[in-house]
């Protein structure tokens, strides 16, 4: 399947063109935000930079200070579902172009993605070194009072691979896989475990 090159901040027409199942390669500026940043923004906190069109990456990186520069040691995605209570509000207030994380998000976020023109990108969980190699620069860090993993890191990425799993047309790959696996589980339940060794 084709790889779509996209640049963050994302333009509205690009967001609209992305469909669940599309592979993308992201370049440009992205920001990290996880539990504390989401809680802060949803409670009315001001974002330290304009989030419009940007990719908000659910990630708590390991970062070290080396020769007075920040160096990303490891930076894979964290579970997005924890931000489900906040994400819809953040999308409606700050109009990010994409939410990136792992595991997908729920109904409320999907509705906001459709209503405000956003997209959910799935990055590979645990692939912290592969993804860190695609972060070419740490532009800055804000909200450091939340601690290193929870701060808002502004990063420049180059060719970071992800998969569109929830799109602005209301499709969710996560929902369809869950439905399908639920059917298959029912079939498995119809055939009980036979223990040939039980004598």
């Amino acid at each position, binding site marked *: *399947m084709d790889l779509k090159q996209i640049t963050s901040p994302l333009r509205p027409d690009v967001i609209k063109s992305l469909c669940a*199942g599309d*592979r993308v390669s992201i370049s440009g500026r992205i920001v990290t935000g996880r539990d504390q940043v989401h809680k802060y923004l949803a409670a009315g906190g001001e974002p330290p930079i304009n989030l419009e069109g940007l990719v908000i990456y659910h*990630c*708590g*990186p*390991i*970062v*070290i200070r080396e020769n007075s520069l920040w160096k990303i*040691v*490891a*930076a*894979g995605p*964290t*579970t997005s*579902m924890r931000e489900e209570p906040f994400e819809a509000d953040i999308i409606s207030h700050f109009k990010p172009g994409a939410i990136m994380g*792992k*595991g*997908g998000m729920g109904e409320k976020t999907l509705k906001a993605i459709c209503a405000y023109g956003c997209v959910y990108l*799935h990055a*590979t*969980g*645990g*692939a*912290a*070194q*592969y*993804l*860190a*190699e695609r972060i070419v620069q740490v532009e800055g860090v804000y909200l450091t009072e939340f*601690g*290193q*993993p*929870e701060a808002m890191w502004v990063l420049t990425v180059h060719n970071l*691979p992800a*998969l569109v*799993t929830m799109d602005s047309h209301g499709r969710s*790959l*996560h929902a369809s*896989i*869950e439905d*399908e*696996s*639920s059917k*298959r*589980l029912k079939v*498995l*339940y119809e055939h*009980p*475990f036979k*223990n*040939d*060794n*039980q004598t």
Partner: protein
Amino acid sequence: MDNRRVQKSMYELIHRTCTMLPQDITSALEKALTQENNGSIAHETLGIIMQSASLSCNKRLPICQDTGALLAIIEGRPDKSVFLIEKAIIDATRALTKEGMLRQNCVDPLSEKNTLDNTGAFVPQIHFEPKDGPTRIGIMLKGGGSENMSTQYSLPLQRIQALRDMEGVRRCILDAVFQAQGKGCAPGILGVCIGGDRASGYLVAKKQLFRKLQDMNPSPVLASLEQTILQEANTLGIGPMGLGGNTTLLGVKIGTAGRHPASYFVTVSYSCWATRRFMVELTKGGDIREWI
């Protein structure tokens, strides 16, 4: 036991656990790759996973940015060396956190402040099990995402029609895999405990994760259940990272603990593909004699 040597051994043990994917898991991922269609999302995802794990090993950097919560199991004779080992584990944890090898992963739940050095009440979690024989130490770094997918069932359970038998146990485990979808960073490895109480169930389940993927459960019933569930879970179509595919689990390891006649718990400890655990045997002087 020599303090300096134990300190060095514990540092090396935790460092390796953080940066090197165990060989049995690497082999299982390689095998899984051959079972996914070329060009599929599952194939590509496993490819990225394996490239990333290989990078972390070569660069001696963390496999995952979530370097988890540290669990240590010390087995050996109950003498003074246990205190040296305990201190060495805590010191190494602090040192590796300072070096950016372990993420700051301990938050005080009252103040909501990060303790910044990965120590706190019950953290790191260190268990001592008195045993006659050489001292062995197991370290596990388990990520929060997969820990959140771990779960405990109390049987009988009407929702999934699980009774107090092996079929009931099977139903619980398959339900846990379904509920987790990709959120525990599939393909996962399950540590399971049948029986015990609510506390011991989780510990026994987690300790099952120390078993090598290729090992055979000495109980024929459990060996059969492990094989059955592994095969069945991989037909659910959840796949790597829950994006679809044939590889939802890499392994299932089941243990037991005596239960109170009134209770029947099935506890599932879900571990991500990046299951990080190593065990070593120490010499009397405190050096690493063998990686087990």
